[in-house]
């Protein structure tokens, strides 16, 4: 019993499985502390949060919709869904990644500072990415861009040499395709 694993009274970790990324939509009562419950569950049980968005979506019923992108082994993803469903203020949890075709979007506001040719180039690229100018000064722009995360990543990367100052992103929101709701 000299080897390391048997000097603890806990079993060793088992073989690492494939890590997957899933997008979950969670319908919750919009009451104080509900976000803390969800986040506390993730941190307390060692789950990952890659992206998290939350806002009230049905005012009269006081329901909020949380979209959380998480990664883990299939068993962990299953656990996350079950653990979320166990929270009292949680009404429904839908795994968008396996529920069927769905759309994921993100919004970013990108501030770029520059003059002359850099400024013109930023404007041309923004046009190509269908980003809108929502604020301008003689030496800066703020662009609003919406789309899949990869599109925003590429746009932001292109802005770096042109004078990127800062980025503010919403994180991912998701919705299923077709006529049915979650």
């Amino acid at each position, binding site marked *: 019993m000299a080897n390391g*694993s*048997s000097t603890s009274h806990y*079993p060793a970790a088992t073989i690492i499985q494939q890590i997957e990324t899933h997008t979950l939509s969670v319908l919750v009562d919009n009451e104080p502390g509900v976000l*803390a419950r969800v986040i506390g569950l993730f941190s307390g049980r060692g789950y990952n949060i890659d992206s998290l968005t939350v806002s009230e979506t049905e005012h009269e019923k006081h329901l909020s919709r949380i979209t959380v992108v998480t990664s883990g082994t299939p068993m962990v993803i299953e656990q996350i869904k*079950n653990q979320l469903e*166990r929270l*009292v203020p949680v009404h429904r949890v839908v795994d968008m990644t396996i529920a069927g075709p769905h759309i994921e979007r993100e919004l970013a506001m990108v501030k770029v500072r520059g003059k002359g040719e850099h400024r013109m180039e930023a404007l041309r690229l923004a046009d190509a990415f269908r980003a809108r100018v929502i604020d301008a000064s003689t030496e800066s722009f703020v662009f609003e861009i919406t789309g899949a995360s990869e599109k925003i990543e590429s746009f932001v990367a292109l802005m770096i040499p042109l004078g990127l100052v800062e980025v503010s992103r919403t994180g991912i929101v998701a919705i299923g395709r077709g006529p049915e709701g979650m």
Partner: protein
Amino acid sequence: MSKDMTGAEMVIEALADQGVEHLFGYPGGAVLPIYDALFHQKKVQHILVRHEQGAVHAAEGYARSTGKVGCVLVTSGPGATNAVTGLTDALCDSVPLVVITGQVPTHLIGNDAFQECDTVGITRPCTKHNYLVKNIADLPRVLHEAFHIAKSGRPGPVVVDIPKDVQFATGAYSRPKDFQHKGYRPRLKGDLDRIKAAIELMQHAKRPLFYTGGGVVNSGPEASHLLRELVKLTRFPITSTLMGLGAYPSSDPQWLGMLGMHGTYEANLAMHDCDLMICIGARFDDRITGRLDAFSPDSKKVHVDIDPASINKNVKVDIPIVGDCAHVLEDMVRLWRASAAQPAKRSLDAWWQQIEKWRARKSLSYRNSNEIIKPQYAIQRLYELTKDRDAYITTEVGQHQMWAAQFYRFEEPNRWMTSGGLGTMGYGLPASVGVQLAHPNSLVIDIAGEASVLMTMQEMSTAVQYELPIKIFIINNQYMGMVRQWQELLHGGRYAHSYTEALPDFVKLADAYHAVGIRCERPGDLDGAIREMIDVKKPVIFDCVVDPNENCFPMIPSGRAHNEMLLSDATISIEDAITEEGKVMV
């Protein structure tokens, strides 16, 4: 009919409406209005503990021995933080509790006021649900909702944090009828198709095994009754976790004893070698599974649990059934009876022969002594001398707890109160206070270790105040025995800080509490001393001085599989076991 009353009065009114007879608590500044409301009524009896942790454990003992919700009232700040261990314990072991905490007035919340703490923040991960009630209008609903959540589904502790100004405020109180929560609706009935699939597997299994847990006990007496019926009908062997002891009678030949880290040889080998595992109300905890990748490699697994999050958490199962144990067992019994194709009786004979060979090794054997009391012997004698009485057993945590689980034999559910999931030293004494209060004429014994019991010893004072004749049976080996055992087996016998050099004189300590102290040091005196303890109608501290070096076997060392158990040197060898079996067969 609604009545106007203060928030403090609402608390008492709601408790009374919920049928609460006993409230364990400790007063303080932020709950004084509720204590004032308690003063003016007779419906709810308050039990004054000596520490808030004791209040929560007492409520746990009360809840687990009755099936009712245990209730606690503590003040803000340290009152609430002292309750945290008990809350976590209740969450791990699925014990229904409603814990009411006082809070500083709403306008001071967040101001670092005197005795303020973020109670809902601190207790969020250690409760099933919690509330901060900032508005008197919400209080009646929240109080009743708290009871509903605590006792339904997988039971657990619920905290209701009430600021002092809300306790003083006046509002309308009425008792809600037909409570329905808008989002929270635990599922009781299991999916019938899956239950049918499970029955199908059960009919064709060659080496089946029931593995049951605390969920059966939590589901109520009907679940235990149905379990017994199903086990008898099927002739399958049955084992149980620490938490599930008593759901199936240990005197029955189909009972294999407890499984897991300190479970019997036959139970663990049956788990390893079975071809069908029917898990009912247990959760594949790491004390049960040992090494996961070698856990019962050749079996199909059926898992019945009311908590979907317990399914496929540690072990992937073939047929998950989400539902209440009693409901699912009822369907199982009905379907088994209805099925035409009952398995031929003979088909299980080979499996039972194998199990009898394992059983013949007598894995709980130990070498007894005439000179010194062996801890196993002490518990065996305690069992023999109390088994015909109306007895309830609580324990602390450690070696004595495992020996109690191995050697005290339970026939009924709700008779065994132990801290399983969290492993809280100091649980047993206050738990026995709660049990005795719920069962004033029963014999309530805390099988304790001398180290554990010192953690909550102050509750002896509570027992004496309320004339609760609890028996604290201390297996005194002067060590934190389980720590010492691990240090011996895994850390080269370096006994770092596991020996208590300055123990109190427990007999004098009992005397100081106005209780009765008994010491026993010799095996020959044990029976007489235990009888004396039983006969005393007062709280007793029994100092049973035992062999300090005894280890708890069998034992599955960590990182090992079920079939790699360490056995005591008193265990019968495989060869002899087979010979003995041969004799039996002849």
